[in-house]
């Protein structure tokens, strides 16, 4: 039956029903039109933004971190590009074979990989900072959902030689220790960004605007000299092994400019491979650890006595019978010397002599002198964790304490402070601030601590200490005149002095025009010998000799055979 003759058509439907449906449809269309007018005319930003998202992107421009370079231009720390592999777990559906291949390339456990891909996140790191050749092979696998991101990794060519000074950076390329942390604001770059238009294939076709230019980090020129640093490290390593010591440190300063040419500590670590680090390895002992210096402080007592005019270098001091009792405590020497001149007190390192000299000095003057040479205050290098040591206020000093401070007990300093203080003798009695960065202009803010004449007299006394007849003949160097002082200090353990020692030696050369100050500290030598003259002075000699030669300093002594063996043993008091 044809449609025109269908019985349904003969039924009468009320006219309003048809018109009602028509009205509803019309209203629907009007609504759509209104919405369309609204979106396109009134509030067009929304659609425009959505459209722009299809072709416009903001790209981050990463900035490189500055290098750390030594004073001669050798690279000590440098960032290089590496890739990090990340994945979108939803997209990354890997077959077991693919998973195994990826895990093998990345040297990961397959289970760990699958665990990461099973996480319910949009972005998961598979492995960070893989070398570029491995990254290329991973990219060649062309796995779905696995992407790579550009990151930077820091490398330290010098390894464990300069690790304490340089420090290291974390994964986010921010400094965590050492110079990396201290100079973070200079080293870190500032990332930039630009807005571009991308075509269908993802290639950039137009630069719309450059929002921010990236700023690469600045290079930091450190005052270290790699040659001297390595020399010091090798010598220290040998000494610590030979004497089976717990730790050691060497500081080399340029007395003329106040720059730190070398700073070595043992035990050390390799910053390129920080997998298993112990706290002991990380300690920058020369800067952060303090110890009671022992006899290396005697020259300061003598200098103050000379400065005040109470003593001359040839003033006789009676040290017999080699013991001195103050209150309930007794100060003793290793050998009983008789009457000694002030110069001989330093040369033979007599505790009794030093205590008797200190008894003539006012506590306030002694305190002011120690404060002036930098004890009790941090060196102010900007290095994280610098120690200031301990110098107790002079009002609390009892006579026995003043006496012990004359020969370096009852006061604690760091190796850096000790070396810094000795620059006063290496110079004309003035102290200039130290610097970890290469100094282009002479230092400002020097402080006169002793008169030039006192400094000269103390230099002569210290030179005697290194000759046969002194405590440190092993510190002699062929071709250069050397001056210095040994120190052998008991270590404090639980408030009592134990049978453990810190052997130290601080010296400078050449005496005619001192250029370098070298301070050596060996902590707990336990192979029999523990005196500074036997443990620390033999380390000083090769370091100083090599450093002077490396810097091309002119020899000031005729080359003659040095007498180092078969000498009568002169030991300092402890």
């Amino acid at each position, binding site marked *: 039956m044809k449609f025109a003759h269908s019985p349904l058509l003969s039924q009468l439907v009320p006219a309003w029903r048809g018109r009602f449906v028509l009205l509803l449809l019309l209203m629907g269309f009007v609504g759509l039109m209104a919405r369309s007018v609204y979106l396109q005319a009134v509030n067009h930003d929304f659609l425009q933004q959505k459209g722009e998202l299809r072709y416009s992107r903001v790209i981050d421009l990463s900035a490189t971190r500055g290098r750390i370079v030594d004073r001669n231009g*050798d*690279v000590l720390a*440098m960032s*290089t*590009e590496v890739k990090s592999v990340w994945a979108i777990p939803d997209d990354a559906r890997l077959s077991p074979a693919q998973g195994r291949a990826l895990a093998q390339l990345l040297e990961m456990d397959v289970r760990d990989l699958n665990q990461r891909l099973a996480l319910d996140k949009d972005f998961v790191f598979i492995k960070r900072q893989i070398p570029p050749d491995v990254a290329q092979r991973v990219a060649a696998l062309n796995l779905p959902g696995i992407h790579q991101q550009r990151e930077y990794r820091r*490398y330290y060519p010098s390894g464990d030689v300069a690790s304490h000074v340089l420090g290291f950076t974390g994964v986010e390329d921010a400094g965590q220790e050492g110079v990396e942390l201290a100079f973070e604001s200079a080293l870190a770059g500032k990332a930039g960004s630009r807005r571009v238009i991308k075509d269908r294939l993802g*290639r*950039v*076709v137009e630069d719309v605007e450059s929002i921010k230019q990236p700023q690469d980090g600045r290079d930091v020129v450190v005052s270290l000299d790699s040659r001297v640093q390595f020399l010091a490290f*090798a010598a220290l390593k040998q000494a610590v092994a030979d004497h089976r010591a717990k730790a050691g440190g060497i500081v080399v300063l340029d007395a003329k400019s106040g720059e730190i040419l070398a700073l070595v500590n043992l035990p050390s670590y390799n910053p390129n491979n920080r997998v298993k680090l112990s706290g002991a390895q990380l300690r920058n002992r020369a800067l952060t650890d303090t110890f009671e210096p022992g006899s290396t402080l005697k020259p300061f007592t003598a200098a103050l006595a000379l400065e005040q005019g109470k003593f001359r270098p040839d003033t006789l001091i009676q040290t017999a019978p080699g013991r001195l009792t103050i209150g309930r405590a007794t100060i003793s020497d290793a050998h009983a010397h008789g009457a000694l001149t002030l110069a001989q007190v330093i040369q033979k390192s007599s505790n009794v002599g030093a205590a008797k000299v200190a008894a003539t000095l006012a506590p306030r003057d002694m305190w002011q002198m120690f404060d002036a040479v930098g004890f009790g205050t941090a060196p102010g290098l900007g290095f994280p964790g610098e120690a200031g040591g301990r110098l107790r206020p002079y009002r609390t000093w009892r006579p026995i304490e003043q006496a012990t401070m004359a020969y370096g007990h009852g006061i604690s300093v760091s190796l850096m402070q000790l070396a810094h203080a000795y620059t006063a003798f290496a110079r004309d009695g003035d102290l200039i601030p130290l610097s970890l960065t290469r100094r282009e202009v002479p230092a400002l803010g020097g402080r006169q601590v002793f008169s030039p004449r006192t400094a000269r007299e103390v230099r002569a006394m210290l030179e005697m200490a290194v000759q046969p007849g002194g405590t440190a003949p092993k510190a002699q160097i062929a071709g250069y005149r050397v001056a210095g002082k040994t120190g052998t200090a008991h270590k404090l353990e639980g408030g009592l002095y134990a049978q453990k020692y810190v052997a130290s030696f601080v010296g400078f050369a050449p005496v005619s025009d001192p250029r370098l100050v070298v301070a050596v500290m060996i902590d707990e030598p336990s192979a029999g010998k523990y005196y500074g003259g036997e443990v620390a002075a033999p380390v000083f000699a090769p370091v100083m000799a090599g450093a002077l030669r490396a810097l091309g300093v002119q020899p000031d002594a005729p080359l003659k055979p040095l007498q180092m063996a078969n000498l009568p043993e002169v030991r300092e008091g402890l």
Partner: protein
Amino acid sequence: MARLNAILILLTLACAIGVVAAQHQARKLYNELEREQERMRQLELEWGQLQLEASTWAAHARVEKVARGQLRMVPP
């Protein structure tokens, strides 16, 4: 009059095609510029890596080891 219209229409068409061609050329050149800049970045990266390699080969510890061990040198 009709001929004038035709000529003008043809001119407009030519201009339009010219715009498209110019834009296409601009994009091609820009693409090439991007590629060269990427190459520059790669070369800078390679320079940095080589510098790092050079300082690792020239590290004092290694030089001393080779000098003493392989070359049997001694200080004068």
